């Protein structure tokens, strides 16, 4: 099979040129994950304006530089770096150029490394340390060879924010306390990175904020910590205000959505209710909703899943609603290339 263009032509208009202060929701289920689509968003915003890509002609690179801040709650930096490399994006280099910032919401969200003051050269080794339970956290040996980029982030107010500057990672989020105060602290951390990115921005530049699976926060804290759907979506609203466009990925697996939606509400657990309220509430706010699901008719050799793009319930600030709703199939190839095609086409 011939190698695919990094950005499938069918998708190009949906993942690039997101309207101002818009919210795009990407929903995924276990069998149809959203990573590839997030990478397409990254690529659309970050790829160099060289005309060798297929969509180069219709990409209006009229001097608008785009920056991306990626907040990932589900996957490590390593994952995104290797996957982006397959698309021809060097995230480490882009981070050096202040075009990209990665915020790690996974590795130390609930885990405070006690050796915060130790120099970073020790922690990758992790020799005999019983605490290194998550192997994906340690940076690979190759990376420290690169001169560690001193990340000049404004330090968070909390003392226990990690001071360790791992290359490429602008900040590691850490959850502390409970209720709104803890969300405020997370928000402050993220917006400090956004502000820092913005400081090198010129007029007309656009900053895209991608938050990968913020529903983890809800699932991990829950109503007992004073955090519910309303609080999380307010938190997202605050982050939205500082970005040009926001992309969210959320899980819409059946138990998380439908247990609470059916008439028998009494049976739903608090998590199911809160998660459904969060996802449906955000879909009401979103300008576009990209839903990923598996093929209705079962597994197929040449189809990975179905992508449905619909308009959300959000109030459009611009008068013209040019988002065309459509449903397409996609297929992720072995080399990471993705083909997006209509039903019946191949």
């Amino acid at each position, binding site marked *: 099979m011939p190698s695919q263009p990094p950005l499938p032509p069918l998708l190009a208009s949906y993942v690039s040129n997101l309207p101002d*202060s818009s*919210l795009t929701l990407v*929903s*995924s*289920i276990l069998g149809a994950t959203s990573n590839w689509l997030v990478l397409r968003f990254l690529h659309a915003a970050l790829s160099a304006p060289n005309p060798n890509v297929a969509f180069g002609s219709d990409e209006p690179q009229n001097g608008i530089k785009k920056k991306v801040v990626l907040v990932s709650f589900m996957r490590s930096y390593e994952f995104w770096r290797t996957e982006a490399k397959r698309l021809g994006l060097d995230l480490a280099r882009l981070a050096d150029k202040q075009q990209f910032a990665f915020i790690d919401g996974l590795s130390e969200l609930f885990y405070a490394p006690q050796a915060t003051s130790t120099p970073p050269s020790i922690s990758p080794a992790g020799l005999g340390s019983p605490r290194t339970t998550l192997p994906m956290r340690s940076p690979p040996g190759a990376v420290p060879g690169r001169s560690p980029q001193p990340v000049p982030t404004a330090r968070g107010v909390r003392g226990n924010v990690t001071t360790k500057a791992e290359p490429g990672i602008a900040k590691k989020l850490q959850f502390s306390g409970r*209720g*709104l105060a803890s969300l405020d602290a997370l928000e402050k951390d993220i917006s400090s990175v956004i502000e820092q990115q913005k400081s090198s921005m010129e007029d007309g530049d656009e900053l895209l904020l991608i938050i990968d699976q913020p529903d983890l926060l809800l699932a991990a804290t829950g*109503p007992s910590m*004073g955090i*519910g*759907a*309303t*609080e999380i*979506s*307010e938190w997202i*609203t*605050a982050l*939205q205000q500082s970005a040009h466009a926001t992309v969210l990925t959320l899980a*819409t*697996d*059946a138990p998380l*959505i*439908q247990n*609470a*939606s*059916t008439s028998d*509400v*009494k049976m*739903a657990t*608090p998590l199911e*209710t*809160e998660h*459904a*309220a969060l*996802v*449906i*509430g955000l*879909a*009401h*706010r979103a300008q576009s*909703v990209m*839903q*990923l*699901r*598996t093929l*209705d008719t079962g597994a197929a050799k040449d189809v990975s899943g*179905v992508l*449905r793009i*619909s*308009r*959300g*319930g*959000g*109030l*459009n*600030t611009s*008068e013209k609603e040019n988002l065309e*709703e*459509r*449903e397409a199939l996609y297929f992720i190839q072995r080399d990471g290339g993705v083909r997006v095609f209509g039903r019946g086409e191949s």
Partner: protein
Amino acid sequence: MAPINLSHRRTHNLLLISKLLSLRDTASPLTLVLDSLEQPATPLLKEYIRRAKLSKVHVTLVAFETLKQPDGVDAFVSTRRKSPADIVKEVSAVYQPVAASNSSRRRLILIDSINPLLNSKRVDPGFDLSSFLGSIIAPTSPSAKIDVSLVVTHHQDVPELPQQSPYSPSPISVLTYLATSIITLHSFSHVLAQKAARDRSLAPPVFGLEEEQEGILLGRLDRLAGTGQAEGIVIELEHRRKSGRGVLEWYLLPPASRYSPQHPKEIVTLLDDNVLYNPPMERDPSAGDEEPTSTFELGLTDRQRREREGVVLPYFDAQHNDGPGEGGRILYDMGEEDDFDEEEDEI
């Protein structure tokens, strides 16, 4: 339904929706808009704002989920990190300068979604929805008489959290109890599909979340958009008059691209008047008992009909004579063309 009824509804109910949407005579102080992902309330809110602009009504948007001030909104109240009491205060504060200049006596307050407020963990247990809404509507100073209309949007598909007190009614029951009009929104293409299924006695199809298919949040695909087919939103209105009598009606609001923003005339129509929903009968129902056509003349001439009516059937005659035994006779009046055969008829 009878055609007389339809014309009655056409005059009265169209006047009613026109009054409600244009906020005339404070026909409805509290309107509850129930929407879903399949048909969001956005087009209706835009229509409210458009009409308010035409009649120079002051528009306030209390934003629980809108990020930026939309066009046509005079005052934008963000609710982030605010207690309900603060929201009420701010809503009345933004109107103060306008009230002083006496430019407009009418005011429209839109709440884009009440769900975040109802589901909030921060709101203290003493929060009372009815007093919250009441204090928004109530005039700030009793001397200045302002007509306030409040439009509250509630997303039906967002699940409600369990009540803190099991004895208090759920927020949605409180809302439907308080509201003077309740507008439920439906997608026109879905209404058409469901009607088509009902007409064939099939189970009506469901869309979006109700499909209960994994990974589907929204079922709406506007395949018909742009073709001029099945565009617009269906408004199911329940209006409670002051007398207590309720009015139920279904309307159709065409999409905003169909008319200019300055269009002064009423654009909402009855759903029953729509050609797609209620296609015109192929034949007039009054001429329904027409004979089937054929090459033979199956009808009766006037003379034949008269003679047929003149025939007295035997059992009528049998009822006149009393007593048994009289029944078995054959009554027959000889016609002139009859040939009486003496032998044959002798018994």
